[in-house]
């Protein structure tokens, strides 16, 4: 019996115990295979009997659910506030840059005009 076949049979046996009786039929184990794996089948049955779902208390479920929704609300509000602050900051920086560039352009034009006026004064014919 190779390991793959053993794995298939053990998995099918466990499935068979969990309302999937067709699983073991599909495997079609021989009597000899069943005999060899009897101890592991028995262990599977014990696990199935002893590992049943447990139910958390209703109070715990309700209070944790409410706390999480409240926390999620705060988290979203904080994230929206941060996003808005980042947007306002970016807009402010953009505005400052625009103003600075207009001021820069004006200064540049004034400087050019002055330079031109000075040039004319230097090259003007003396009487």
């Amino acid at each position, binding site marked *: *019996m190779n390991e793959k076949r053993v794995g298939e049979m053990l998995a099918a046996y466990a499935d068979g115990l969990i309302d999937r009786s067709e699983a073991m039929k599909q495997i079609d184990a021989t009597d000899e295979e069943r005999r*060899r794996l009897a101890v592991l089948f028995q262990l599977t049955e014990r696990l199935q009997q002893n590992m049943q779902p447990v139910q958390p208390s209703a109070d715990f479920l309700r209070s944790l659910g409410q706390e999480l929704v*409240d*926390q999620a609300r705060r*988290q*979203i509000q904080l994230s929206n506030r941060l996003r808005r602050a980042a947007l306002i900051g970016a807009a402010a920086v953009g505005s400052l840059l625009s103003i600075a560039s207009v001021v820069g352009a004006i200064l540049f034009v004034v400087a050019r005009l002055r330079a031109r006026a000075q040039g004319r004064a230097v090259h003007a014919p003396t009487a």
Partner: protein
Amino acid sequence: MHDESDSELIAQAKEDPEAFGLLYERYVGRIYNYIYYRTGNHQDAEDLTARTFYRALKHLPRYVDRGAPYSAYLYRIAHNAVANWHRDNSRRQIISIDELVMRTLKRKGPASLAQKHEEQALLLQAARRLAPDRQQLLILKFVEQMRNAEIAEVMGRTEGAIKSLYHRTLVALREEVPDMLNGQVEKGTGEDDDE
């Protein structure tokens, strides 16, 4: 019942807090059971379940949906929470409720009931000594009653690998509880009898 897929709920939950509440309702039972069977008591199961969901919520804005089930992500967080819990408690002797119940029943209860509880406690204690991935497999298979394909998806392995892991898990567990099983049959595991 809400029919939205996990992906839809996750996307909604980034804007709508109620959507995270729906994800919580969908998975809290499974995560609680996983943690309960890993720790063995309800008090720690409640504490670690809460931590798991708070952590998931904290990381929700950065969560990237890669097609894997959201439950796999939650199980991973729960697994880490349980690992930390074991590390923190490693120096202290932990007596689980199962053990306390067993001790009380041994003293007071009817013999048959006490024996049944004792067997359950022994089996679960033995299961808790297995490697974490083996414990997870047993919980998903027997408590959650998942199919092998679903377990494979959650654990990020192939279905064949899950069957093989299950075989090795049973063999390891059998070594832990040799007295519990009737020894009327030869101890065949399928490992040492390749033909």
